[in-house]
């Protein structure tokens, strides 16, 4: 029986209640959870922390531009198969020549094709009840990839290449599948239809404070407050690439190494802001803002 209790986050991970509920619902219904949202809002972290917290096996498939279903499910190792199938002849030849040493095939038997199937994360997760499968950044995949997954998602089974072995999982044992996307390309409607969809909202200032506390528990309160003010101020500017959770955490990591008072001073002076601003145009824009609006850096104290 798959794990279907309600999970609300762990010590290290603050799970938005709405997300926790969507995740619970997806697991209960045995459907994948598709999470979309701005980069750096903790989409990928959810299954990782969930698996860690509950002590479940996690299979990760990072999607790239060259991803295909073969890598994701399973492929057949032709090279090994060829080698092993020729070993008998080779050994006979060796014997003829009076060579003692023999080649072995390990535990593999060329008669059983199953030995040559290299399972990908999906097949592994499907054959283990109660596991977690993360398909990270599916929007980076070629268009065919999500469509190729449709069958597996709705029928809960994979057919292994060459060997024809069928890996099937019951609805109850369905692994918790989490799929993340940055919306760089629109996913096919049919694909979305098979998932429970959740859009992560950008956390508000209060929630962000809690997230920071989870990551930097010993951070001085004042430093966090000042940093958050600057952070949300920057987000409101409408930059080309608004700073995200990941960036403020990195920034604070840098600040945590110095004394609070100094850190406040540095933050107010927008030092190390390169951790937050990622494009040249945005940097120039912020530079102009500071010049034009004297109060920007000063009213934060």
């Amino acid at each position, binding site marked *: 029986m798959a794990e279907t209790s309600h999970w609300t986050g762990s010590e290290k991970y603050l799970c938005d209640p709405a997300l926790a509920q969507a995740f619970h619902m997806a697991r209960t219904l045995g459907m994948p959870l598709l999470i979309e949202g701005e980069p750096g809002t903790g989409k990928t972290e959810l299954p990782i922390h969930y698996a860690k917290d509950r002590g479940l096996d996690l299979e990760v498939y990072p999607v790239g531009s060259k991803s295909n279903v073969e890598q994701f499910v399973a492929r057949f190792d032709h090279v090994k198969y060829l080698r092993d199938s020729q070993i008998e002849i080779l050994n006979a030849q060796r014997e003829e020549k009076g060579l003692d040493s023999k080649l072995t095939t390990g535990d593999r038997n060329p008669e059983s094709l199953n030995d040559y199937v290299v399972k990908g994360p999906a097949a592994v997760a499907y054959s283990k009840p109660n596991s977690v499968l993360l398909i990270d950044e599916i929007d980076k995949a070629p268009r*065919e990839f999500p469509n190729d997954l449709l069958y597996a998602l709705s029928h809960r089974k994979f057919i292994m290449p060459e060997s024809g072995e069928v890996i099937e999982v019951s609805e109850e044992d369905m692994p918790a599948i989490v799929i993340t996307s940055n919306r760089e390309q629109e996913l096919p*409607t049919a694909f979305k*239809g098979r998932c429970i969809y959740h859009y992560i909202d950008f956390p508000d200032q209060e929630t962000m404070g809690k997230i920071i506390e989870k990551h930097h528990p010993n951070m001085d309160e004042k430093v966090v407050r000042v940093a958050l003010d600057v952070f949300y101020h920057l987000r409101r500017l409408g930059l080309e690439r608004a700073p995200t959770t990941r960036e403020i955490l990195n920034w604070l990591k840098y600040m945590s190494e110095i004394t609070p008072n100094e850190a406040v001073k540095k933050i107010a002076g927008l030092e190390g802001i390169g951790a937050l601003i990622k494009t040249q145009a945005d940097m120039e824009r912020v530079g102009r803002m500071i010049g034009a609006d004297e109060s920007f850096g000063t009213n934060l104290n």
Partner: protein
Amino acid sequence: MLSSLPEHFRSHSLKADVRTLLLLRKAMQKGLVKTLGDIYNVLKGIIVKDPSDMGPFTKAYYAYFLHIPIKPGQTLEDAILRSETFQKWKTDYVEEADRDITDEELVNTFLDKVHLTSYDIKEVVSGKEIWDKDNPDQEDTDPINEDDDIPSRKLDKMADYSELSLEELLERMEKVREQQKTRHGGGSHWIGTGGISPYGHGGAAKNGIRVGGQGGGKMARKVMGDKNYFPIDRDSTLNDNNIDAALASIKGVIEESATEKLDVPQTIKSGLKRGGLFIPEMSSEKNEELKIIVLIDNGGYSMAPYVRSVQNLFRKMRTRFAHDLEVYYFHNTIYDRVYTDERRTKAISIEKLLSHSKDYRVFIMGDAAMAPYEINSLSIESLKAIPQKFKKCVWLNPEPIKYWPHTYTIQLIKQLIPMFPLTPAGIERAVRSMNSKGTEG
């Protein structure tokens, strides 16, 4: 049962069909649906497939389950306050609460009740002991109005629907809907006293204590009027607000093809590596080359308001795709040359323009409105030559489509080059027609 649900949600341009109902049913069987707030959550997971679906979904939900219509531009508070459902609920509630309550408080309580989920109930029930120990952490996650009667809350009264069978629940739902249709019962029994909700009477949510449901209510309130959660008008002329939607449709310019081709060099290479075992290597052929020529009419007053947003659109596109993009300018119509700068001082001849590879996609943007004599034989020849050379060529016109029949020159040019309105939806259609031509040739 609830059979009108898909139809209702579809009328809010959401995707819902019989599968939606089946999933909802399954969720009920699995015990995910115990309160009205649960239905909101479950349906949200099933139906919403894009942030811009959130607004319409919330609207449809309020109209369908609570009989609260939300008019365009109206806030959720406003819609609730004006609704019959709320009035009815308020009468019962105020009587019971026996004290003066502001409208704001009332709406908050109402929202709390609507969006009360079984998760919230669990939290409250399990949180009770924690409160007794006066754990400060709990206060953060579950905001409570510091009210005197917290300890006196009767949590045992918060019976949920677990006792009810699915059929009973559905039956009640249907009954409520019937009543709403005939308006006999006045307002909804979903929430309130005599109806389906067990929380109305003497429940824990009494007297303004927040039992939760915060999240849902907050979300519902937020999505109203937030343009991120509401689709922008896809038929309004391109402006700064809907430029991203246009960009999304223009992304379709990149052809998505999944044709597979035998990769001969790769097959030989990997075959040799395998010691002579040749296994055909396929390579998926993707034609992601995006070469674009944009011809912009930047003369005359009629075009002035659009030039900026048009350029904005293509600049955004260029940063996103980093492909070839060439921009030329013309005035009203194209004669024997187009200009490379906005001031129309540097020109290239039409022959040079036509010497581009025929793979280029050509977008011509202009209002195509001019004096009839401006379209002379030279211009007509040019306008014919361009689509002849570049098979993928469209004219995008910022002029609202209803005025097109009244302008002679538009009618004329339309016959030479396929013309679409310069709106996100129009661009989408243009791109689609472009791509379909691509497969023919």
